[in-house]
């Protein structure tokens, strides 16, 4: 880092000083453009070389100076552009803000509040990984583009910056005497890891595999009936696309590890490009656990979350990966993750409630289901569609075949609506929709009894109000983080968490204690 001054002094690194990203970053980002230029001008010569002709033969000899000159000019312009873009990209981390200035002709200044940080990602594309660089993405609550993208920093600097931002965002006061000191990286403890074999198995048994098998069978039958072999040709692009989709899922879910630190949940994954996401405590707006029918054989589940700033998931897009909390996991993993996301489940028997939510039927675990009179509307699902409210979260389950459990913490409820169509009115039913930030999870209590739905509507409004009053600060160390004993399988997690919190917490949790005794 040349222009930013020496970075070796950790003490006064990120305070108020304007820094630049790594000088190699435009080349890492723009290598495709450079490669294209090289290819464009080098192709001809290369082809001649392959054909055994002299490189400067025939008519090309006369044009060679022009071609070379042109190529050099384009190259110089590109490199100049890279250097300018690097020179004019600067960032600064101050007490409450991150600021990034970019642009040379059209300048852009961006400022993001640190206490509004929703998530921080460190992304390493393959090339950046080779050079030991990383991109830092900083999300605030805006379902659009990332608030701040710093590409690229040296990986150590990126980690250091992430620690600093998270420390500032958590409200941890700097050490007395050395207010400028960079925050130490929060210690973390690995919670679970997805083995590659399970990932492959989950892909083979995923929903799309079912459709592929069905489609393959249909085309074999069709070709046998019509005795037409030609249309197999049309299946080739489809097969390529499917292969790409599988590869994507595999490559993104590879080596998926979850770790817990006082700064929040860390997710790491990726085969060639690696990504490390940090979700600070309490930033998860809604969560869902799904189980496609075939996954039931091995008892696997997938978890997805809504985080403000991550936005809606496209099919295979970036957001689709970032909103995945667990690509595939067993029941124990799911319960572990639930305990991390919801440290205080707000019920005396969280294990039973969550298990009933995952695969239970009827009123086990305190769930209220669709009344029996409506079984015509949901012949399969009426015994499963239901909701249960704990002191801290609302659980909504649905689906007999595609099992789903949605969890929304009370203090994350934005607004709510009761819906009732003509058919539902005939059966005295109503739906309750909870509104949350954009993401893959859409919480909805379906086909509840009108009386129950109304009671839930009122109770939920009251609970959300009470939960909001408790949550007074965006700084997660400043508010009481109720850390009660979690569900039995996660005891090893808590042992790792407690010393970390002591280490970082400058003031102990004051307000109210755990909900249950």
């Amino acid at each position, binding site marked *: 880092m040349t222009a930013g001054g020496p970075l070796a002094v950790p003490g006064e690194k990120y305070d108020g000083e304007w820094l630049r990203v790594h000088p190699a970053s435009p080349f890492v980002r723009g290598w495709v453009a450079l490669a294209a230029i090289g290819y464009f001008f080098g192709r001809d010569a290369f082809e001649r070389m392959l054909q055994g002709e002299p490189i400067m033969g025939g008519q090309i000899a006369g044009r060679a100076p022009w071609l070379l000159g042109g190529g050099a000019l384009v190259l110089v312009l590109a490199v100049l552009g890279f250097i300018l873009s690097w020179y004019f990209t600067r960032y600064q981390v101050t007490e409450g803000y991150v600021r990034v200035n970019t642009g040379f002709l059209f300048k852009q200044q961006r400022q993001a509040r640190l206490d*509004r940080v*929703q998530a921080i990602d460190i992304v390493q594309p393959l090339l950046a990984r080779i050079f030991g660089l990383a991109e830092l993405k900083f999300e605030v*609550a805006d*379902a659009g583009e990332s608030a701040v993208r710093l590409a690229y920093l040296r990986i150590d600097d990126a980690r250091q910056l992430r620690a600093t931002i998270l420390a500032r965002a958590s409200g941890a006061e700097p050490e007395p005497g050395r207010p400028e000191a960079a925050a130490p990286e929060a210690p973390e403890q690995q919670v679970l890891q997805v083995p590659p074999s399970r990932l492959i198995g989950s892909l083979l048994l995923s929903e799309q595999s079912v459709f592929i098998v069905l489609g393959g069978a249909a085309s074999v039958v069709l070709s046998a009936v019509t005795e037409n072999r030609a249309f197999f040709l049309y299946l080739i692009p489809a097969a390529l696309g499917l292969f790409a989709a599988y590869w994507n899922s595999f490559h993104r879910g590879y080596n998926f590890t979850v770790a817990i630190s006082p700064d929040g949940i860390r997710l790491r994954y990726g085969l060639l490009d690696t990504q490390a996401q940090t979700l600070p405590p309490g*930033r998860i*707006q809604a969560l869902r656990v799904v189980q496609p029918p075939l996954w039931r054989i091995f008892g696997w589940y997938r978890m997805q979350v809504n985080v*403000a700033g991550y936005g809606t998931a496209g099919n295979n897009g970036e957001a689709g990966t970032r909103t995945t909390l667990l690509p595939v996991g067993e029941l124990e993993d799911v319960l572990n993750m639930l305990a991390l996301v919801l440290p205080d489940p707000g019920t005396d028997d969280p294990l039973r409630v969550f298990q009933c939510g995952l695969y239970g039927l009827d009123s086990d675990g305190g769930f209220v289901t669709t009344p029996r009179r409506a079984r015509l509307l949901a012949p399969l699902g009426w015994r499963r569609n239901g909701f249960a409210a704990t002191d801290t979260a609302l659980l909504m389950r649905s689906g007999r075949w595609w099992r789903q459990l949605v969890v929304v913490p009370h*203090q*994350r*409820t*934005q*607004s*709510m*609506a*009761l*819906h*009732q*169509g*003509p058919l539902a*009115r005939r059966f*005295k039913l*109503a739906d309750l*929709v909870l*509104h*949350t*930030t*954009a993401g893959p999870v*859409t919480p909805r209590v379906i086909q509840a009894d*009108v009386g129950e*739905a*109304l009671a839930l*509507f*009122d109770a939920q*409004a009251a609970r*959300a*109000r009470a939960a*909001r009053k408790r*949550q007074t*600060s*965006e700084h997660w160390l400043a508010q009481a983080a109720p850390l009660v004993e979690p569900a039995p399988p996660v005891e090893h997690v808590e042992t790792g968490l407690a010393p970390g919190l002591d280490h970082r917490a400058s003031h102990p949790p004051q307000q109210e204690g755990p909900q249950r005794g």
Partner: protein
Amino acid sequence: MHTAAIDPPGIAWLRVSPKYVTVRLVEWAVGNLIVVAVLSLPLLFTLLGWWSWLPRWLAVAVPAFMLVLAVWRLVLIPRQVRAIGYAERDDDLLIRGGIFFQRVMVVPYGRMQYVDISVGPVERWLGLCTLKLHTASASTNAMIPGLPAEEGARLREQLSARGEARLAGL
């Protein structure tokens, strides 16, 4: 005043201005009459004998169907407008709407990010406005149309003040 099954009990709904029917009528006319008119063109052409390939019954049925649909929508408008209601509670705002597909929404004041007031040309002529609440969730589609202008301004100030007092983060 009509209250439906999914309304929370004991709420005194404030209704929007009856003049809002006019706004909806204009919207209806712009939307439906143009569609019906365009779909009637084939009928006109067949009657004039320009188009002979089109069966007469089809040329009549399509615009007639659209006309019936449009009239049905027209008949519903006054009831739909009467069904819109809102109520300010201590900590949240309730909004209801719909006849067949009813909806009751609750928006906590502390969750409001900002409040919009918009006025279209017809609304301006009638002295009405539309108030829209935004939370961090895009699916919060909380809109109160057809408010008298001064009521809209009062509500906006009221909501902003209450939102500030109860402001919560995400």
